[in-house]
Structures are given as structure tokens and as C-alpha cells.
């Protein structure tokens, strides 16, 4: 570990050590019983060993802290901490010492030194210590550049630099997927994979919604008073493990009303992820804004406002449809047709005028129908015709309803 002779010509020595968290020493219990040949010896040795847990020597995980054993890995979002020590190896007092620590990334150069002031003098066998911290925000090669300048007793000005290179790796793989509900709700599924080689405790994975949305997290199951995480008791991710987080986004009423419908690409929000590893080593990442292409509804959108879950066989029931004119400036004149399918029978007049519908406005339409087949039935067969453009929009499979026979189920 020692420096080559050549370097000795400098009066000062610069040493840098990355300060990851210390680790807990683990010991290896090898035990025997009193009747065995070594008798008490093994247990005596284990009791004398300072790294064992007294009273529970067979417990492997001890309490002794050991300093980091290697540089380790550093991941985006973690904090890079380093000890920088400048030591006066010589026998003379050195003056006007300036230690500068810069971090060169592929895009910028940052100054990490706590103070940029010159130290007036450094006596032999003394050191200047600095602990630097930097939250890494870039992937790829980073170079820590440490520069030391000083003046010898003879007045000679000397200067040297050292470069420490390290790679910042990507810790997580994040994939997202949107599901559009029949209502204006949007469900976001985020798959987060730990692509580091150590377990990660996910302290926080939250969705910060954009202005337009309210978000509710669907990652806890409420049982009793306390919500229980869907991920079980221990919230950590093993290497290469993936976890799905689910969020439900509802447009805020003011936006839902104003825009009528949300069209095109909208910004949903961003994921904020905080994780911790060994002894609380912390990392934090945010995704960029997640964007979602709102589903296209064509010019006219038909959505369901209310529908029962379960209906009785051959008994009429009511549903409410909402018809929205999604076009930008055209007022529509719509005609509603209702076509029966093998199982769905509409009640009421087909082919009726719905009246004028101005742009971005909607109307609510109560309809009555009955089902003639048991089981889960799809509601289909609604047709809207724009009389001006002579264009017909078909609405099939707009919802499903469970049809039961009331006579056969004595429990009801």
C-alpha cells in the first residue's frame, strides 16, 4: 500500500479513502460440548474473542465495526463520501497548504472541498483532514481530482495532483405501464428492479403527481387499523428482484371539467424512490416526468356513469351513460340506436334524437335493459350517429354485468 520511492520527494502525502458505511464483523462459530475432547476450550476461546456477542456466542453477526474493505460500488443517487488526508511526511514545517478536491464527471466539474482556504502551516507528522460528500447525479466515469499546493521552508512552491477514477452505476431498472379505467382514472404500474448486487430496503416509492391529478397508492392492504404492505413484512429487494407498485390517479375535478376530456400526451407525475442499504447508506432517485398518452375516444365518447354489479335474470335494470362531444369546435347532433344482442335486450325506443351537443360538453343518458342469459355478460350494441357527418360510432363491450338467476340461489 505504500507509495513508491519517487513520491517521497514531496513533503506531503495525500491519501484518499472512500467512506462507505462500516460493516459489522461476523464471526464463525465452531463449538463443542463439554464431553468432547477440547472440553471447555472452544467455548472459552469464543468467550474471549472480543467480536462475539457475550451470552450468545453462536450468533454470527457481531457488533464490532470494521472499516470499508474495498472501494465497493457506487450507484446513481447515492452519496459519495471520501476521507482526504494530507500528511506531512517530512521533518520540516510546510507552509501555505491548499488542498482542493474536485469531481470531474462526464459533463461538469464540481468543487467538493469543504473549505477553500489555505492552511498556514503544517508541522511534521500532522495532517489536514477533510471528509467530502457528494450526491452522485450522473452515471459513468467520475474522476476525483485532488490537488495539493504548498510552500517549503526554502520558499519553493510545490504542487501535485492525484486522480481517482470510479464508475457510477445504475442501481434500479424502472418500467412503467398505464392502464386506463373506464372512468377518467388512470392506473400506473411501476416495476422497480434492483440491479445492484446487494439487498435494498425500499424506504419510499411514491408518485408525485402532476398538477392535474390526485394520486392514491395501492400498495397497502388495509386490515384492521394498520395498513399492511402488499410486499410482506420485510420491505427489501434482493438483487435482481422486481417489485410492482400500483398507483391510482384521478384527474382533479377542476381539470376534468375544464378540459372536458384529457387529450393527447399528459404529464402524470414522477416517481420518487428512496432506498437504503448497509447500515443506512442512503440513495434517492426521481424519474423524469412520466408521460401518458390519453386514450383516444374519437369525436364522441361514451362512458358509463353507473351500472349495477349484479342483476337478476330477465329483470330490467338501469344504467347511466355519459356522452361527451370530444371534438374541438363542432356541435353535434346525435341519434342513438340500440341493437339487441343474443343476451342483451334494450328497453325503450331506438333511433331517438339526443339533441344538440356542443363541443367539450356531455350529457347523461339513463337507459334500461335486461339480460336473458346468465353469467357475466357484456353490454354491447349502442350506436351513435352523427347526423351531420353521417358517421356512426359503435360502442360494444362497454361494461360487463353479472347476471344471476334469483330462483336458483336460496341463499339470497
Amino acid at each position: 500500500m505504500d507509495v513508491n520511492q519517487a513520491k517521497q520527494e514531496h513533503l506531503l502525502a495525500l491519501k484518499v479513502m472512500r467512506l462507505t458505511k462500516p460493516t459489522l464483523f461476523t464471526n464463525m462459530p465452531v463449538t463443542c460440548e463439554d464431553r468432547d475432547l477440547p472440553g471447555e476450550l472452544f467455548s472459552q476461546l469464543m468467550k474471549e474473542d472480543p467480536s462475539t456477542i457475550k451470552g450468545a456466542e453462536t450468533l454470527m453477526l457481531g457488533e464490532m465495526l470494521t472499516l470499508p474493505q474495498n472501494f465497493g460500488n457506487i450507484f446513481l443517487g447515492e452519496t459519495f463520501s471520501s476521507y482526504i488526508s494530507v500528511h506531512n511526511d517530512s521533518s520540516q514545517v510546510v507552509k501555505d497548504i491548499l488542498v482542493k478536491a474536485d469531481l470531474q464527471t462526464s459533463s461538469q466539474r464540481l468543487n467538493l472541498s469543504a473549505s477553500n482556504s489555505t492552511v498556514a502551516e503544517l508541522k511534521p507528522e500532522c495532517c489536514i483532514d477533510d471528509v467530502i460528500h457528494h450526491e452522485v447525479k450522473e452515471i459513468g466515469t467520475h474522476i476525483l481530482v485532488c490537488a495539493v499546493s504548498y510552500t517549503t521552508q526554502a520558499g519553493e512552491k510545490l504542487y501535485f495532483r492525484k486522480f481517482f477514477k470510479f464508475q457510477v452505476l445504475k442501481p434500479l431498472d424502472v418500467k412503467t405501464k398505464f392502464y386506463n379505467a373506464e372512468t377518467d382514472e388512470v392506473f400506473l404500474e411501476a416495476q422497480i428492479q434492483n440491479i445492484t448486487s446487494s439487498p435494498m430496503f425500499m424506504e419510499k416509492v411514491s408518485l408525485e403527481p402532476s398538477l392535474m391529478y390526485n394520486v392514491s397508492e395501492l400498495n397497502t392492504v388495509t386490515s384492521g387499523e394498520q395498513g399492511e404492505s402488499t410486499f410482506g413484512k420485510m420491505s427489501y429487494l434482493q438483487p435482481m428482484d422486481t417489485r410492482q407498485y400500483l398507483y391510482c390517479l384521478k384527474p382533479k375535478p377542476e381539470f376534468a371539467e375544464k378540459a372536458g376530456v384529457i387529450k393527447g400526451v399528459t404529464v402524470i407525475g414522477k416517481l420518487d424512490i428512496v432506498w437504503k442499504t448497509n447500515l443506512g447508506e442512503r440513495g434517492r432517485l426521481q424519474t423524469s416526468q412520466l408521460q401518458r398518452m390519453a386514450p383516444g375516444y374519437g369525436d364522441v365518447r361514451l362512458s358509463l356513469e353507473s351500472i349495477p354489479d349484479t342483476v337478476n335474470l330477465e329483470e330490467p335494470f338501469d344504467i347511466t351513460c355519459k356522452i361527451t362531444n370530444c371534438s374541438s369546435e363542432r356541435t353535434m347532433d346525435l341519434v342513438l340506436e340500440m341493437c339487441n344482442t343474443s343476451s342483451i335486450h334494450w328497453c325503450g325506443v331506438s333511433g331517438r334524437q339526443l339533441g344538440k351537443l356542443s363541443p367539450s360538453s356531455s350529457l347523461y343518458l339513463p337507459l334500461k335493459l335486461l339480460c336473458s342469459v346468465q353469467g357475466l355478460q357484456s353490454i354491447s350494441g349502442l350506436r351513435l350517429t352523427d347526423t351531420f357527418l353521417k358517421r356512426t360510432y359503435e360502442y360494444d363491450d362497454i361494461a360487463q354485468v353479472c347476471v344471476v338467476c334469483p330462483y336458483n340461489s336460496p341463499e339470497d
Partner: protein
Amino acid sequence: MEGHESQTQRPMTLDIVGETGIEQKEAPAPREVMSDKPPEALFQEENIDLDGEAFVTPDDESASENMLEKLNDQMMESVMISDSPNNSEDDAGHMESLLEQFEEGEEFETEGLEQQQKEGKEEIGAVVPNITVEPEEASPGAVDHVLQPKNMEGETVGIKRETDSVQQPGEMSSLSGTVSQESPLNIHKETPKEESIPVCTIFSQGSKQKPQGQALVPDGFEPALVKSPSFSSSVETSTKVHPLVCQPSPSLSKFFTDNGNVNPASDFFDSFTTSSFISVSNPNAESLQAAGATERQLSSGASSTTSAAPQEPGTPSFFLGLSAPESPRQPTPAEATPPFAKLQAVFSGNDDPFATALNTSEVDRRYDAWLPSEDTRKVLISVATQQHSPVFVERDRLTMPGLKFDNLQGDSVKDLMLRFLGEQAAMKRQVLTASSVEQSFVGLKQLISTKNWRAAVDLTGRLLTAHGQGYGKSGQPTSHSTDSLQLWFVRLALLTKLSLFQNAELEFEPFGNLDQPDLYYEYYPSAYPGRRGSMVPFSMRILHADLPQYLGKPQESLDRLHSMKTVCRQILDNLEQGMAEDGSMITITQENHQASIQLWRSRLCRVMYSMANCLLMMKDYVLAVETYHSIIQYEPEQKPQLLSGIGRIFLQIGDIRTAERYFQEVEKVCQPRGSSSLNPSTCVLMNRAFVHLSQNNYAEAHATFLEVLKLDPKNPVANNNAAVCLLYLGRLKESLGQLERLVQQDPALYLHESVLFNLTTMYELESSRSTQKKQALLESVSCREGDSFNTQCLKLASN
């Protein structure tokens, strides 16, 4: 899938950026900035598509048109994490100048290289043990899609070593250390000298072929810079990210000629002060293993002339081997060596087997009880029923152990002293060797208690040789006795303690699953009349089960532990139903019954501990915590330790909140014991300190460790941990001073590998003269520690 996808949704490319987001500060103009670099220039990572799976065909226009159709996302979108796209012009300028410097640095490289090679050859023996392989963590494909290989030339030597050693773990393990003398009894006959250093050959070859790699191995440090020995996947990555092709810069070459010899090549990419340290936490580490000196070979003639123990038909005696001139021959075992006599009980009572049986049967039955497998049981029954004609047992069902290597001994402390302090100093080191103690169990115990485990292993070898199970005797029919198995247990336990796992496994192999018929007393009706149960001590079974996990086979360990647990449970069930351990209907006194239950409870606990430890090593934290928790019901007095341990597991994972919950429970448990609630116990304080530490509050953690020291000033853990906290607070000198003082004042407590490792790490951080300071440590180690001392914590070999 993909075709469908491109129609239905717009692929998204998302950046993960650091929380404070740099994007608002600078105008993003990254590509332009880098565009004037030569095609092969640095930092091509810029262009690397970081996500192989991404659907990178963004075609906004067409996509948005297709959007008019029904959206049916069935595909996950990949969120890409990429570099922040914000370079500024002058930053790039810096970068370029840096690149130039690297080029310069590489020109100097070759000078140092020669030295390096020479050194490498000289220190071959020392380099080898540093290499760790953790096959279970090797996941080469893990990071493949993160960064694409650009230029393999920059591959470091260290990586070369690493990958190669991954490929040949077997060979590595059989590397013999310093002097490999070709004695017929050499440990590794199968790996002759040239072969025994393949890794080192690779090392020097690597440096020849890849001079650029030297840039990463400055100062003769081990190449810890870009590799992380414990995570080979990271190594995988770094092999791919060295596009270090640079241009010369006249201005900078001036800088270098000015200080030509002052700033040698190694200044570039200096190594962080780190080093690999192999301890139990790296179970695959191979310790230095010196081939024995020939003069220490056992003289078989001597042992045969001096053996004078009472002979038992079928169980050759072996207790008395070489008697050193100063140690008198033991006239009667009973007088000279009491423990020896105790072990001899079986033999001395031989005249009156019935009386012997009465005396020892209770305790023997309790301790020896074991449930053999069905097959074994049948053989044992047939042995019992056919008293006079020997039962034929197939050869492969017999246990025929033999030493697999001889003369393990060596003393790495002395070797280091020879290298660093000279012959004179090394001569002063006096440790017990196998020859300098009584050739008996007494001598063996003496060696163990003075921590001369290597010598102790040698002594077990001699004693086993006397028993006919010596070197090369594996596979030859032999018979077993209580003592021979105890010797094997001690030998294998010590090998394990010395982290010589491969050797232990090799010698364990003939014992199979410890269930062969000749390992039960019933097999020897004449030698052990009336005695039943397992000759294999329970501790040896534990050892046998624990061993595979240190060799990267934790599943095997778990399998063995589970079957042990089943047997323990069954025996406890039998006892609880009023039967004997093996399920036979014997009337046992209440007292003996209780003692049996107690013993088997504690054995069950021991098995559970091993299981939990193994699970922890496998990083299966859920099961590990569960298992530790279930031990509490058997060992209620260990509750605070166990709960604290579980809390520390959670801290290790990073789950501080859950850890705190466990620590609170500990406080509740500890409270009634402590005299007053105002004075929390050390255990409670220690836990609090760890929580502070995990919250990055080193100052508070340090203060809390100091509080522990107020209660218990000699607490080595608190002392060490307080010093570690000081370092994180930027107070290196204080921290160093404290540790140094501790080691000087109380070497018995602080000459521990963890403390010494911390101390040497700080020496390296503190000054360029760490070697001298480490040598001073070596001297104090040499005065106190036996030959089993793990010298790697001194980090002298890596110089």
C-alpha cells in the same frame, strides 16, 4: 409484441435524475460539446444506450396518430436512466485536458511495470491468498445491459485476475503458500509447483499484455479501485468501461517532465486507500497455507517404539506418540494426564465391562443418542443378533478416513517477520509446535489454548497416524473408537477455524453423511459392550453441516441442518413421551430424564443457530430473522442478544424503523433487570449507537459508544466502534491514537483481526510510512499470538 406495441403506444424515454435536478441550471448541449473529440475518444458512455430492453423507436407523429385508436397498453415501458444532459462548454474543456493527462500517465506506466512484475514474482506466495472468489455472487450477465463494452484494452490486471480466478476456483484453493517443498507427503501432490501459482502467472502475464491496465494499479496497491472483490458483477461492468484512448498534450508533458520522477505514472488513478481483507465474512477466502517443512515429518518409527497405551482388541491405541525428551513418558494414563484418563475410561474399565456400563451408561446414552437411518439400523441390529460371526457390510458403507495432507504447519506470523523484520527478529518468535508438546491429548489442548491451531492440526495428524488413519490411509479398512473420532472432530474443527475449508471438506468426505454403521457403538459389541448410539460427537455433526456454506454451498448446509433438526425433534418427542432418546422403553430416573431433555433442547438450539447463521449468510433475511426469533423460546436468557441481533440484521438491510422496533423490545426486556431505568444497560446503549450510525449521525453514535464505555470501560467493541466513528467525523489522528493505545495497553483484547484491520487501514490513510507501523504491530502480534493468527488483517502482504 413489439410491432403491436409501436402501434398502440408511444415509447417513452425517461431520465432518472438526481433529486435536486441539475437540469434547470445549465443549458443542455452535451452532444455538441463532445463532438469534436476523435471517434475513439473517451466517455463514449454518453452514447451508450443504457437499456437494452427499451423500445427505442420513438416516432412521435405516427404514434400520436395511432393513439386515436383504442389504447391498450400491454407492454411495460422502460424508464431509462441516463446521464444528465447538461454539459457546459468549459467543463468539457476540463475533461479534455484530463484526457490528455491520462495519456501522459500511460507513457510512464511501463517503467513501474517492470518493478511491479519483479515484485509480483517475489511475492507470489503472498499475493495469492488475497484473491477471493465468491461464486455465489457471480452473476456475469447481471449488468450487461447497463453498459455496452466499448474498449476492452483498458481492462485492468486486477480484473483479469479476478475473472481468471473465478474460472479456476479449484486450482486457487490448492495454492500452497510460501515454500512448497516437494516432499512425498506434500499436501498438494496433484498440483506441482508451477501449477500451484497459476493466478500469479496470470497476474504477471496480464501486466505484460495490458500495460494500460497498470494505470489502475498504482503504488503497487491491489487493484481495488474499480473492482470490488465481493461483487464480481461489478467487475464485469468495469471490464467494459475503459475506453481510455487519449491524445498527447505537449503542455502537460512539460508538467510531467518537470516533476518526472516526482509524479510517476501511478499518480494517475491513484487507488483509494482500501484493501481486501479476508475474514470469516468472506468464507471463500483461502488462507495462507504453508507447506510444511520436512524435518517436522512424523517419524513413524519413533511413535511405534514409544506407544505404550493399553491395547484394546480392534481399537489400536494411539495416544502416546513421540515423547519429547523433556516430557516424561506417561507411566499410567490415570496419573499423568487426567483428561486423558477420563477418555480412557472405556478401556480402563475393560476388565469389568458390566461395571463400566453401569457407571457411564446414563451419560453415554444421553450424549451418544442418535437415530440412524433405516438401512444403518438394520445392519446394526444384525450385528447385535449375530454376536460371534462377523456381519458382512459392504465396503462402501464403511468409513475409511485418512489424512489427506500432512504437515500443514507453518507460521504465517513468522514468515512475515522473516520478510519484514529479518531473520534475527524472526528467530525470537517462539511458538509451540506439534513436536514441542506432549504427544497426547494434553499437548493437543495446550496447543489449542495457546492458539497454535496449525500445530494442533499437525498433532492430530500424528495421533491419527498412530491410529492407522494417517496419510494415504483413506480407503483402507480401519476401526473407529471414541477417541479417534474425537481426534477427527478436533482436527476438522480446527481446519474450519483456520478457514481451510477445502481441506476440511476433503477429509470429511470418507465420513459420508455420518450415518455409516461403523460409526455407531453397536457395531463394536466386543469393544463397547452394551454401549449404544453414535460414536460421532454431536458437535462433529454440526461442523459437518456447517461446512458446505463456507464453500459456497449453503443449500447443502441447510439440508444437513434440517435433517439434524428432525432427529433432535424426534429425540425430544421420545423423551417427552417418557421413552429413552432412541425411542426404546427404558425406565429413566426423573433427574436423568430432565437432564436429557435439557441437553437435547440445547442441541436443537445449536442446530437452529446454525440454520439462522446460514440463512443470514445466504441473505435470506426473512427466514433468518424468523429462525433467530424462534430460538428465543428455547433460550429465553438470550432474548436481549437475539433481539438486538435481529435489529442489527435490519440495520444491515437498511430498514432502520424495524430495527428500532426490535431495539425497543430489547429495552423492555432489559429494563426489569437493570437497577434503575435511568441507567440503560450496555446492550441498550450499543443498539442506540447503531441506530445513530445508521442515521448518519456519527457524532451522536460516538457519544453513545462513549456512554457504553462509562459503564464498561474495558468494552472492546465500544472502544473500537468509537474509534471508527471518529474517523467518519474526520478525526483520523484521534481515532488512530485511541486504537493504538488500546492495542498497546490491552493486547489480549485488542489484537483481534477486526481491530487490527481498522488500525492498519488508518495507518495507510494516515501516512506513507504505514509499513513501519504495521511492522511494529507485527512485532506485538508475534509476542502474543499463536500460529493461527490471521496475518492478513495486518495488510503487510499487499505491499
